[in-house]
């Protein structure tokens, strides 16, 4: 994926092509700080807020562009994350992210950082808050360095996300 070509799919763009990996330390520390003060529910409230407010331009793009826009966003997103190994698969019914090497978990582990155990749940809560206004939903399986995330249209009878399917990060 050519970062220059794909960056138009991102809501906020930078002069640099790839982010600075040490900022994963900040993300992990932020989750830990909020959870310590406000508990898991407080942390989930923060994640939902990020998804439906900060990332609202992404939701708008997904609402207009549907699943191809979802795929374009994630391709551009992971092209700009240092160390990500992710395949984005688009078909007529879904977008699947096969995360073979999560850039955040990889970097935190490489630097012996204590990872917030519920770290991987943020992928569900943030993405679900981004997807819902676009008529989409997400299901996450795995975690702790590799996972599968499936984005698909919201359906009445679809089982809710089973949080037991999301592994604790270590």
């Amino acid at each position: 994926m050519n970062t220059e070509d794909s960056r138009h799919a991102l809501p906020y763009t930078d002069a640099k092509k790839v982010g600075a990996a040490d900022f994963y330390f900040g993300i992990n520390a932020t989750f830990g700080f909020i959870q310590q003060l406000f508990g898991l529910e407080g942390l989930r409230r923060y994640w939902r807020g990020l998804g439906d407010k900060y990332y609202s331009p992404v939701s708008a793009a997904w609402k207009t562009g549907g699943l191809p826009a979802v795929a374009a966003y994630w391709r551009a997103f992971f092209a700009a994350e240092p160390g990500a190994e992710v395949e984005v698969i688009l078909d007529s019914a879904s977008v699947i992210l096969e995360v073979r090497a999560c850039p955040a978990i990889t970097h935190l582990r490489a630097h012996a950082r204590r990872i917030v155990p519920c770290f991987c749940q943020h992928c569900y809560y943030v993405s679900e808050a981004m997807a819902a206004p676009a008529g989409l939903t997400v299901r996450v399986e795995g975690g702790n360095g590799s996972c599968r995330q499936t984005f698909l249209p919201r359906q009445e009878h679809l089982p809710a996300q089973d949080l037991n399917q999301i592994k604790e990060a270590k």
Partner: protein
Amino acid sequence: MIGVYDFCGHYDWTFEWLRQTGGEALVREYWDEAIHQNSQRHACELIQQQGFAGMATYWGHTLSHEGAGYDTTVAEGVFRIDMHECPSKGFLLRNHLGAYHDYCNHCMGWIGPMLQEAGFAVDHEHNHCGQCWWEMRRLSDDNPPSGPGMLAGPHDVRLCPDWSQAGTKHDLYCRSNHPDHKV
């Protein structure tokens, strides 16, 4: 997933979320506990162990990774940074983001306490337009900050024509270690 490419955007949004949730005191607590004592503890270790050499190593690594336009000057008893194009504030300006009312204060929010712990005080000024300067000296050193151009020569950001822009407010800190100790 939230990532590091747009980190400065959700970092800024997080400051405002914290302010709305627990007031300005919570934002200060976050900068000190989550950023200084946790996220950036590698910087604390380096500077506590190596002093000025640790500052050169830390800021050399982090600012080049963030894509900053900056100069550093090392002289007897002082380490100086002239930031001409802050990658962090620059990201917000380019993307028209600004959830929190005083984004630039976050640097003093974690760097101030970190340097105090390592035995240093800070003279610092920023213009909220992506430009700032820093001079770090030992707590026992009473020397005042340098005048424009005296230490960094032509690299001194205060000599840039856009350092003082109409309608912008500068924040100045003298021998400070706290984000609220502005002159």
